[in-house]
């Protein structure tokens, strides 16, 4: 049987405010446990929440960036459940009147098509603390530094039909929130966390199947794997004539396994009701206008500009513009290097590969966009070969040299472009390979001739100790062999 896959996402985005959503504690990551939790965060008796205006500004910026309506009078509810990392015994969140109403995001697919994913709403809420189950010998540690960190939870419509689309949407959203500067986007620290709702239905059917929710995926790769895993699991069940249980599941990315966390029947009754400690939040036109005026260039606009200004193709422009830090790195390299296409190739090729290999983000890169730009200049003006350029890149990365030019000098990577010296080398090599020269000259097919040139390049590069300009060698060879 053929199946349609239906996917909706819920994304928790930690807002990069300096202080928490309802208290003055710092939100900085990585401090000693419970050093960033004050009386309000600890839910000491009598303490009260005071809303952080910046969190509202960020939420409004997000709403504007995803083409959404902003709720002028948004309210907070209490979501009641007991857990040690939830100090008040309820989470302050939004249910009836979330600050961001319906909106949409357009995503680019590999086949060149664009798809619109609708956003149902996005609401403000507070994060919980962390329960630490290791190192406490049968007990649980509680760290409340994260408790009260502002989140927006973005809820999509079930508009995605495969893992590629879901991942493309997730990456697009990542690009939007990091471009806005409202989230640091660091998924390894939990700054963005994804819940994936998946259901299957017979191909073409109008009726949605029973869905499962896979929670807390914190990388694009795990998200892709988890979707593949869950689709296969559901398909196996349905094809065997079974039924899907509506449930929340946990996915273990390291083992590619998932297990049920709780079924619908076991779900909490959260007993939502309006939080009496917080008045409805009124948002007026001037607040929205101010937020609109503070919006930076967003990924879609940036992509269009990269195509226009740097002559990049759709794919390259989209990829670079989707990550604000990578885009800034590219622009620095392109401005300095004067050759945007070459800069784009290096940013997406060697540079990105190296970041991935070392699991680093652009912010952790040991080299700057300007340095890469300097390298592009020397590639473009033929000072170094592409092989030499890789050696310079390596030296820059490991911090071996001061500048691109200093590294080229120190390593002797400058190409020989003195045609007199190169001609002498060609003469010498041709003289030592009379049979090959004869074969070349007897060949009438220019394609085959071109192929045969490669046979001379090896000895030539050897003779020049790798420093001969291959382009010039090629020109001289063709001329001399044709004589």
């Amino acid at each position: 049987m053929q199946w349609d896959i239906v996917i909706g996402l819920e994304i928790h985005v930690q807002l990069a405010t300096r202080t928490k959503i309802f208290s003055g504690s710092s939100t900085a990551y990585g401090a000693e446990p419970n050093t960033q939790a004050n009386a309000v965060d600890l839910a000491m008796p009598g303490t009260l929440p005071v809303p952080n205006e910046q969190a509202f500004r960020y939420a409004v910026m997000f709403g504007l960036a995803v083409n959404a309506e902003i709720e002028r009078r948004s309210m907070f509810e209490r979501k009641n459940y007991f857990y040690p990392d939830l100090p008040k015994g309820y989470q302050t969140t939004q249910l009836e009147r979330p600050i961001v109403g319906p909106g949409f995001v357009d995503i680019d697919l590999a086949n060149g098509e664009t798809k619109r994913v609708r956003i149902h709403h996005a609401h403000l809420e507070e994060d919980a603390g962390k329960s630490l189950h290791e190192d406490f010998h049968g007990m649980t540690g509680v760290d409340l530094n994260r408790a009260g960190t502002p989140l927006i939870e973005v809820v999509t419509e079930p508009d995605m039909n495969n893992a590629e689309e879901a991942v493309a949407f997730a990456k697009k959203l990542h690009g939007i929130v990091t471009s806005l500067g409202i989230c640091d986007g660091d998924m390894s620290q939990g700054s963005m966390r994804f819940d994936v709702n998946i259901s299957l239905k017979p191909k073409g059917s109008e009726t949605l199947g029973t869905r499962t929710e896979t929670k807390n995926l914190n990388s694009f790769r795990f998200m892709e794997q988890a979707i593949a895993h869950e689709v296969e699991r559901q398909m196996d069940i349905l094809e065997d004539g079974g039924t899907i249980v509506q449930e929340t599941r946990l996915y273990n990315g390291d083992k590619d396994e998932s297990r049920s966390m709780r079924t619908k029947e076991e779900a909490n009754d959260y007993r939502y009701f309006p939080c009496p400690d917080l008045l409805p939040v009124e948002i007026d036109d001037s607040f929205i206008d101010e937020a609109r005026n503070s919006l930076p260039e967003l990924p879609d606009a940036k992509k269009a500009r990269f195509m226009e200004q740097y002559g990049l193709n759709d794919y390259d422009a989209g990829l670079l513009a989707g990550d604000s830090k990578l885009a800034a790195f590219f622009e620095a390299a392109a401005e300095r290097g004067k050759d945007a296409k070459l800069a784009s190739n290096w940013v997406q090729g060697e540079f990105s590969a190296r970041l991935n290999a070392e699991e680093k983000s652009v912010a952790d890169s040991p080299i700057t966009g300007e340095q890469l730009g300097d390298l592009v200049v020397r590639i473009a003006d033929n000072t170094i070969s592409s092989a030499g350029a890789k050696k310079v890149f390596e030296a820059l990365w490991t911090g071996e040299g001061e500048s691109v030019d200093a590294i080229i000098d120190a390593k002797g990577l400058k190409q020989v472009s003195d045609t007199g010296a190169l001609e002498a080398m060609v003469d010498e090599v041709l003289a030592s390979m009379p049979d090959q020269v004869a074969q070349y000259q007897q060949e009438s097919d220019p394609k085959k001739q071109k192929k045969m040139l490669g046979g001379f390049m090896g000895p030539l590069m050897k003779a020049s100790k790798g420093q001969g300009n291959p382009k010039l060698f090629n020109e001289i060879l063709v001329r001399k062999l044709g004589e």
Partner: protein
Amino acid sequence: MHNKSVAELSRDLESGQVSSVELTQQFLERIRQEDSKYNSFITVTENQALADAKAADEQRAAGHATPWTGVPFAHKDIFCTNGVLTTCGSRMLENFVPPYDATVTANFRKAGAVCLGKTNMDEFAMGSSTESSFFGATTNPWGLGQGSKRVPGGSSGGSAAAVAARLVPAATATDTGGSIRQPAALCGITGLKPTYGRVSRYGMIAFASSLDQGGTMARTAEDNALMLNVMAGFDPKDSTSIDREVPDYTAALNEPLKGLKIGLPKEYFSDQLSPAMEQQVRDAVKEYEKLGATVKEVSLPNAKLAIAAYYVIAPAEASANLSRFDGVRYGYRCEDPKDLMDLYTRTRAEGFGNEVKRRILVGTYALSAGYFDAYYLKAQKVRRLIQQDFINAFKDVDVLMSPTTPSPAFNQGEKTNDPVTMYLEDVFTIAINLAGIPAMSIPAGFVDGLPVGVQIIGDYFSEARLLNAAHKFQQVTDWHQREPQ
């Protein structure tokens, strides 16, 4: 000395007739001698009080005195006091010492007042008799002379009894459904519940957040005004406090009452009220007519729904507010929990008393899926209707007057096994909290030798008007000066 009001003590301190240290010693001595009869204090902070009194005397000598500098008083044990045990009348907080001051506490500290200790109360302010305290019931100073142990009302029964017994001239209190006015009436003192949002709730342990309001208890209206001068005002730490100018509440105390329009809600003069009680209230209203006020009957058609609505909304909010008492971070924790569920269930089963558990259960039920619309939402609609009743009434009259309670102080133990009868104690006070308007109770006579209170209800932010009406009445009556024997 112990019969003097805050205003009089303040004048004595100013004239140098007495020092704060002397005053403080005298009141502390009275508490030591007398309070075993009443159990009105949970904690007496003797050393801290004497140190504060000494500092107050120095402030006064240096010319930095406020009317409160060096004046002794007490806090209801619901207000957090930095470094001082704050129990809320519960085993759950038997050992809880907050590392912060409530805004109300901080304001009295800034004013230089000397806190002698923390007064007894119904557990988490849930009750009308101060019998549900983990630290034992408080006894009403009235009735002891006739050999009966009467309740002081609640939940602020400790503050009311302490003021009535002259252990302190004034005490803070809180009112969620009548917890200032009902004990003030039953103990023969004057109490004021301000407009919701007038006094910061920061550091005041929450029972029902949308109804809780801190307020004042003293023997005279003037002292209530002096207290409110310290307590009222916007607080950035409480988003529900209101940013509105605070008048000097003593300024208008002596304004003439000529032309004051008094409304008598007919629903509050029903058969729930004994003829003797009604007579006292009618007599008080006659005094007002002598002072130049006019009286007319008004109607609050939805008043009868107030108790039902209140006992959905207040427990619903309480069920969430009290979730933080889970044994994880502070307060009571059961012995040797075997797992998380055991920690939660035994901590809360052992840490909370029966009335608190009853209200958590009721509130949890009212908010549950399938019941929310029928209970919580409907109660909120009723709340708006009740609010509208008052708004309509105040189009015609300046203040409303009614009995504060249906009867005088009842015997201890009389209603503890019948929660619904206990809830009816607040039948005349509860709608005021639902509407969020201010109201006072002032002493207005005696029935069977026990004090009776009249409730004066005002429109939003009309505290100065209420205090004026109360003060003028106290200029021509002496009910508030009667001392229990």
